[in-house]
């Protein structure tokens, strides 16, 4: 890859992305400089400049991430944790260094971070480990993961299908009951109901940290408190939080946490599961095979401790290394600053959409906390048509149910349009988007 050096002028107004700039708030000037690191943001779509407002679905990659992957294949490509040759050692070092980087990024110990393909696989890993425990796998030490008839699993009504369907399947396999914490008409979790839903039969409470549709942040402390009171495990779907705000797993005090690399400037095919060390080391494996064993006979096998116990087969090495580079990029920019910038963009999105006749924004009203994301309904115009209209102007948004059909049904909708930001989104882009949305109902003749 040819890397074009870009002249960077640091001014007091546009502090650099170095850690020493952690205090200064991000500005459009800095964002414009950040955009130089993302080649795809300079491309044209339908004859106009791309306005990418779909980072909630997948984010774009900075050069440092693309280069990390390329450099691995050019200079270090080898299978990790096996072989005595120099490349294998080099590859293993880079792979494990990436694990330490990503673990550190969320405040975890290195041995508490398991690589997965994505968050979906992380949730399935825990759900299958639990049903394996219910079948007696893992012995006495794994009893706390067991779930069965008379017991229950709790999710919320706003979950992404990834944090719903695996639990439906776990309930069906084990005879446990699947319950949910309901939401009110504005999409807020009904905490008073949570206290009744979570009871002494609850074995797992799984919920999203930041909603991919509503943009709300869950009351983690309250839900974790309720779960801990009854001895239930907790799992946080952090797909929309780890990329956009500072996350410290120890402060959140959850047992498990999952996220996807491609939503945080990394490549597809890589994600991670955080689990408290004593839990991971007691949990039976999900996928089994090579690289996760100690001794194998024709009859049985002994397993490695975490995290390797959960990483069967040849791993996603270049992707893990690239995700490490992504975490470094975010750390150097400063997650507090990213959060602050995106909250301001989110506020601008909601305020602007609220001002357009016939547009209804889902989730919290303007002025209330929300990440840089807004899903909305345009009266008389289907979301697919809204998305097509915006695409014609080079504006990329997500349309549909955003993998949250039950939530949409609860709010009386089948499909909405969602604009989502990232650290490379400018206020100009938000304004371009708002200007386009304001023209949609007239184009379609909506009355």
């Amino acid at each position, binding site marked *: 890859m040819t890397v074009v050096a870009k002249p960077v002028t640091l001014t007091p107004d546009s502090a650099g992305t170095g850690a020493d700039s952690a205090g200064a708030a991000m500005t459009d000037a800095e964002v414009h400089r950040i955009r130089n690191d993302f080649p795809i943001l300079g491309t044209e779509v339908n004859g106009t400049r791309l306005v990418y407002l779909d980072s909630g679905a997948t984010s774009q990659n900075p050069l440092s991430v693309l280069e990390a992957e390329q450099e691995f294949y050019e200079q270090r490509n080898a299978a990790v944790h096996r072989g005595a040759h120099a490349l294998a050692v080099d590859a293993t070092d880079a792979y494990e260094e990436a694990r330490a980087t990503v673990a550190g990024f969320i405040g975890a110990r290195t041995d508490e971070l398991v690589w997965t393909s994505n968050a979906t696989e992380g949730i399935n890993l825990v759900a299958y480990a639990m049903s394996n425990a219910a079948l007696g796998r893992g012995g006495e030490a794994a009893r706390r993961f067991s779930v069965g008839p008379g017991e229950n699993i709790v999710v919320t009504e706003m979950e992404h299908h990834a944090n719903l369907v695996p639990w439906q399947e776990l309930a069906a396999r084990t005879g446990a009951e699947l319950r949910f914490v309901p939401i009110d008409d504005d999409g807020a979790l009904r905490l008073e109901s949570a206290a009744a839903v979570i009871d002494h039969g609850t074995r797992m409470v799984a919920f999203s940290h930041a909603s991919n549709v509503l943009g709300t942040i869950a009351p983690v402390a309250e839900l974790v408190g309720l779960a801990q009171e009854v001895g239930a495990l907790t799992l946080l779907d952090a797909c929309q939080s780890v990329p956009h705000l500072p996350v410290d797993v120890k402060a959140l005090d959850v047992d498990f946490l999952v996220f996807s690399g491609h939503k945080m400037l990394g490549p597809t095919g890589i994600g991670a599961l955080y689990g408290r060390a004593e839990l991971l080391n007691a949990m039976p494996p999900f996928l089994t095979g090579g690289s996760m064993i100690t001794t194998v006979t024709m009859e049985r096998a002994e397993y490695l401790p975490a995290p390797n116990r959960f990483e069967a087969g040849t791993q996603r090495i270049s992707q893990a290394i690239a995700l490490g580079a992504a975490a470094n990029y975010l750390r150097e920019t400063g997650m507090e600053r990213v959060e602050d910038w995106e909250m301001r963009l989110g506020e601008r999105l909601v305020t602007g959409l609220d001002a357009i006749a016939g547009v209804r924004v889902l989730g919290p009203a303007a002025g209330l906390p929300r990440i840089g994301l807004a899903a909305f309904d345009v009266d008389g115009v*289907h979301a*697919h048509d809204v998305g097509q209209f915006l695409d014609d102007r080079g504006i990329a948004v997500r349309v549909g149910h955003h993998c949250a059909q039950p939530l949409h049904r609860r709010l009386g909708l089948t*499909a909405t349009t969602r604009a989502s930001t990232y650290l490379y989104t400018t206020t100009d882009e938000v304004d371009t988007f708002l200007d386009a949305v304001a023209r949609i109902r007239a184009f379609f*003749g909506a009355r």
Partner: protein
Amino acid sequence: MGSGLEQLYQQVILDHARARYGSPLQDHTGEGTTGESHQLNPVCGDEITLRVGVRDGVVTALSWDGAGCAISMASASVLTELVQGLPRDEVISLVDSFREVLRSRGRIEADEEVLGDAAAFAGVSRYPARVKCAMLGWVALEESLLAANS
């Protein structure tokens, strides 16, 4: 703005999307035989329930209920106007012609003599993500004709 948008959303399509000829669903049990089909596009949630009445091999009644984008609703409206009173076999070949145009990625021109207002959907063929929207009602028609035949 690219000129593509007006090619996709031609006025006749926008008009049909609002008019929704054939909606809501009616009871056609007075006809010789009836057939019904429900189609759902899981990607966007568009759905349609379409019912036909067939008497002496001719489609004599057609109605539907649906929710979805302008393309899918307009397409169902257009087909309602197009196929009523046509022999069943002719309707089936019409569905085939429509499908052929839509899957052509803009390579096959729509014959207005044959497809009437439905020819306006030729522009959809350049948007692969929207072909299923335009086909929704037509697949429902095809299946309800099969049901009416059995």
